[in-house]
């Protein structure tokens, strides 16, 4: 339905071109009808916005090409000044070059909250920011807008805390300072940003860690205590029971240390979430190492691992250790939760899309995962079947770690599964050229 709606709006746009005199009225009426037909919800609004955007594009065509109707010089898209490209209009001004040279993220705005220039560090953080457009495209923080108004109105600077949640969670202290001069071509406000994510995260993580560790360790700890008491009392002289209990105790203790390891590993990944990886990793090479290291546990359950990769090296932008961790976690799951004597396949390929991505699909032919669980698997401590996966040594942290690593790498994870047939975990990472 939605696509139909948009096509409709586009067609209306086409009519504008053919019959400029009546088209305006037609579109206006149609817009109302469309709105009236639609029940509530953003789709209508988006469709209108999209329709409007399409209209703008078509309008431009008309003006430049055919010249029928008055030239459309007005700007319709919000916050974007068409006359200013993605690059700064003040590119060659001394102040611009000064800002550019600063290591901290710096944004210069005018009295109307329009970004006049932003240096490299700032552009890296705010990917949706446009030079020449409103700063709200970068951050809609109400405090930031208020601080800018305050700085302009009272010539006073202020520090506000920004909490950006996307694409990675990040906290920044923004110092918003007015510039005394009132020249049109100098910025009215300079915003200097300081990334405090790490400091904040450390505090948060300490709290999280204590909460999770104490909660998750309570159960195995209670079990250990119970066995110790039994061994000290009732089973003191029962050699067979002692043997059995010690075995269970040992595996509970192992589980506890695995939980701690995984929690630490997750904490480390989270800590670096806002720092993009800079290394270059050959996935083929990493894969063969990972598969080799997992052969023994696969052999133990008579499972075969088959790898199918392009012959040439496949590079992605990333941190080698973390890519290893991703592949180990998913492959280990495929072996562990696949079936005894199963077949695990790993297929590496390149996507056809413009921005090429490397796709790694890891499939097993195990029992599969019920639909209800699929969207939850990457939550920390989430296990499909608590009992059986606990027996298999699971802590429920593996895929949570995978998710965090991929977020840092701008990667995606897709999980597809069919009960009784198997599961496929597909990772996509930004591809980089080999030289």
């Amino acid at each position, binding site marked *: 339905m939605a696509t139909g709606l948009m096509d409709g709006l586009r067609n209306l746009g086409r009519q504008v071109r053919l019959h400029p005199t009546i088209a*305006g009225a037609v*579109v206006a009426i149609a*817009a109302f009808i469309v709105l009236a037909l639609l029940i509530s919800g*953003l789709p209508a609004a*988006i469709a209108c916005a999209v329709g*409007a*955007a399409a209209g703008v594009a078509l309008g431009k065509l008309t003006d430049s090409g055919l010249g029928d109707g008055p030239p459309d010089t007005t700007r319709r898209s919000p916050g974007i000044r068409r006359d200013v490209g993605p690059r700064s209009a003040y590119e060659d001004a001394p102040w611009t070059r000064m800002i550019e040279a600063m290591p901290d993220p710096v944004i210069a705005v005018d009295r109307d909250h329009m970004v006049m220039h932003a240096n490299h560090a700032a552009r890296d953080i705010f990917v*949706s920011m446009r030079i020449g457009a409103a700063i709200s495209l970068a951050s809609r923080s109400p405090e930031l807008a208020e601080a800018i108004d305050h700085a302009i109105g009272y010539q006073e600077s202020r520090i506000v805390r920004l909490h950006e949640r996307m694409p990675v969670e990040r906290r920044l202290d923004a110092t918003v300072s007015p510039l005394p001069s009132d020249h049109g071509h100098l910025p009215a406000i300079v915003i200097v940003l300081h990334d405090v994510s790490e400091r904040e995260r450390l505090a948060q993580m300490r709290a999280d860690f204590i909460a999770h560790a104490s909660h998750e360790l309570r159960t195995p700890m209670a079990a250990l205590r119970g066995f110790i008491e039994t061994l000290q009392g009732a089973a003191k002289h029962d050699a067979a029971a002692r043997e059995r209990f010690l075995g269970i105790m040992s595996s509970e203790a192992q589980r506890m240390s695995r939980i701690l390891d995984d929690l630490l590993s997750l904490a480390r990944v989270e800590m670096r979430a806002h720092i993009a990886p800079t290394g270059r990793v050959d996935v083929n090479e990493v894969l063969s190492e990972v598969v080799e290291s997992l052969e023994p546990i696969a052999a133990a359950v008579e499972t075969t691992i088959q790898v199918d990769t392009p012959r040439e090296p496949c590079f992605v932008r990333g941190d080698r250790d973390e890519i290893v961790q991703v592949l180990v976690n998913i492959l280990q799951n495929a072996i562990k939760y696949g079936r005894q004597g199963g077949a695990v396949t790993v297929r590496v390929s390149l996507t056809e899309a413009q921005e090429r991505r490397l796709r790694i699909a890891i499939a097993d032919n195990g029992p599969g995962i019920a639909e209800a669980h699929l969207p939850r698997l990457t939550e920390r401590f989430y296990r499909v079947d608590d009992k059986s996966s606990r027996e298999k040594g699971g802590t429920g942290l593996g895929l949570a770690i995978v998710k965090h690593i991929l977020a840092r790498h701008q990667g*995606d994870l897709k999980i597809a599964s069919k009960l009784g047939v198997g599961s496929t975990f597909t990772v996509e990472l930004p591809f980089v050229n080999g030289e």
Partner: protein
Amino acid sequence: MEHTVKSYEAELAQLDNKLSHMGGLVEQLLGNAFAALERRDPRLASEAIASDRAIDLMQREIEELAISMIARRQPMAQDLRTIVSTLKVAGDLERIGDLAKNVAKRALAIAPETRPQSLILGLRHMTELATASLKNVLDAYMTRDDEKALKVWRSDTDLDALYNSVFRELLTYMMEDPRNIGLCTHLLFGAKNIERIGDHGKPLEDDRPKGDKTSVTLIENN
């Protein structure tokens, strides 16, 4: 009211600025509402609840400006569409603000609870998705990026699936241990509110072929 005659251009830009400001307020409210729920922080919850007032005010301002623009300028074609869709988005944002406020109210109710934190992980995941799609919708709207808007539309199926799963999980907790019932009931209502936030960007028809029993989940970061 206004003595200076503003240019039409400037009014359109003003409308957008107001909408963007309103969006920022809603994003903040949603973030604070969930943080209050997760940290059992009654002060933050009260703050979040109070901030809904500012959102309502902003919606009224947008409505007034938009209606006066339509009346005075009698805009045609794209401009009319833009103004009317701004009204729509503002209406949706107001609803989302209300839903987020309800989450904050649940946070107030469960503040004294000491049940394990793990019960809330599903809601955290839901909030992450809702936050992401709200941000994407607003970004797409503000930049008139139709491709991004479509992507948001599709990704909302995930929030539905997540809600169903969280619902079942919370029911299981309630059956396992009656002491969980009070808390889980509040969390269920909280989850319902978050799910409805996603409804304000209802997905396209499921485009998977019928009869294919493969279930899919997608975690995207780009």
